[in-house]
């Protein structure tokens, strides 16, 4: 269950930690029961993500994937950000242990959740653009160690 050097770097020196006041989009995914919550703040101008910050309650991988996800979308267009998949986050971190793959899913969902909020604030229904946000519904107490069934 070893973490890659990149995961350890992003855990030890997470990028873009914090909050954005009056953010254009805020998204929160995860569940305290499962042991991880990610909250993402976006500043968007002319369709470009000018700034992004995050706060995460979770394991080393949860913090590292949040950090990497913010790096991958900073300065990008909304369209580009929506294309960032959990696989992309994982690859950028040189992989994750199998039991931690769900953290990358959560990071992808955090981006989408924040962008959904951005659309909602503009009076646009986000679902046709982004789809449903898949998050953990607190289903991890079945002792299988599988929190997110969509993996």
């Amino acid at each position: 269950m070893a973490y890659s050097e990149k995961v350890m770097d992003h855990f030890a020196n997470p990028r873009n930690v914090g909050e954005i006041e009056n953010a254009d989009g805020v998204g929160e995914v995860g569940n305290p029961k499962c042991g991880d919550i990610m909250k993402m703040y976006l500043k968007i101008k002319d369709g470009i993500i000018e700034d992004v910050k995050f706060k995460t309650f979770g394991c080393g991988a949860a913090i590292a994937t949040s950090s990497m996800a913010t790096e991958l979308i900073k300065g990008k267009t909304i369209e580009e950000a929506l294309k960032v998949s959990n696989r992309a986050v994982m690859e950028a971190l040189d992989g994750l242990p199998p039991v931690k793959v769900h953290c990358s899913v959560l990071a992808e969902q955090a981006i989408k959740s924040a962008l959904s909020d951005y659309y909602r604030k503009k009076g646009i229904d986000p679902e046709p653009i982004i789809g449903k946000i898949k998050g953990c519904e607190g289903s991890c107490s079945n002792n299988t160690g599988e929190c997110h069934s969509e993996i």
Partner: protein
Amino acid sequence: MDKIIYVDNAATTAVSDKVLEAMIPYYKEKYGNPSSIYSLGRGAKKAIEQARETVAKCINANPNEIFFTSGGSEADNWAIKSIAFEQAKKGKKHIITSSIEHHAVLHCVESLEKQGFKVTCIKVNEKGMVNPKDIEEAINENTALVSIMYANNEIGTIQPIKEIGEICRKRGVPFHTDAVQAIGNLHVDVVNQNIDMMSISAHKFHGPKGVGALYVKKGMRIKNFIDGGAQERGLRAGTENVAGIVGLSVAMKEACDNIDKKSAKLKKMRDRLIESITKIKRTRINGDLENRLPGNVNISFEGIEGEGLLLLLDMKGICASSGSACTSGSLDPSHVLLAIGLPHEIAHGSLRISLGENNTDEEIDYIIECIPPIIERLRSMSPLWEKIVEKEKEERK
């Protein structure tokens, strides 16, 4: 990292110099097979029998009541499954255990459940204590076995073993205890404490890994665990781990002779850690403060997740644990912490420090210095902590 501070002694311990010295000859010049007839073999056999005597003496048993195993998990499996199947022949297919057992016991019992046994899992109170009365009430005419751990590996709770043993003895039910965490930390007396079977693991008290023992009271019928040669009175075949067995016995003698001194030292360090760490806001100590292993500290920090805490401690050279190392492959919080009633999100943020003989006061100072800024750092980036703080503010209004 030049400085390593090892405070995970409930996971494993360093082999002591004396133990290693005693073991080496059995790998080198005294390598004979104990079953061989020539002197090299006889010498190895003698070493095993001496070790058996030493181990027996430490727990007030007879040498022929000690069987060497590959460790605590094997001892648990052997005791529980063997008694269960023997008893099942008499129609007794009910097993009583507790909700805070080690997985070596819990998974054994679960496997028996799948094979038609009925299991009563005794609940513990919020401090992790088993109430002997609950066991008394749970025993019925079909009860095959009671298995309750001596001391818990995560929260350090010491169970009223003597009382539980007495109840079982009175009702004629075999009583097994997993004493893996107790040996070397507490005075264990199988006669006085009414124990019928007991599991022991060497590496928890500065012995080698991969060797343990099962105490089986004379008159108890246990079945063959490994079929094959005549080793361990024909019950556990396979050429003996001679060096390991010698290591186990030397470590056990060393540990048992030193219990009072060690306990006094560890308790002082433990209490200092507890007092200082619980000063951090929104933390709680898990387990019972009175009936507690001398080296166990288990604390939950609200708003953070344990793994991040462990990784940051590791960066400071501190080796600790967030519950049972055996469960680290799973995402669920510790079953022990859930059993004492902690909500999932708080159980996730728990830290276990288990002290050993080699720890020093300076190391305790260092840990006390390192923990608060780490908690602060993790909380400052935790949306869960943010919510806790907001809720606190609202409640104050």
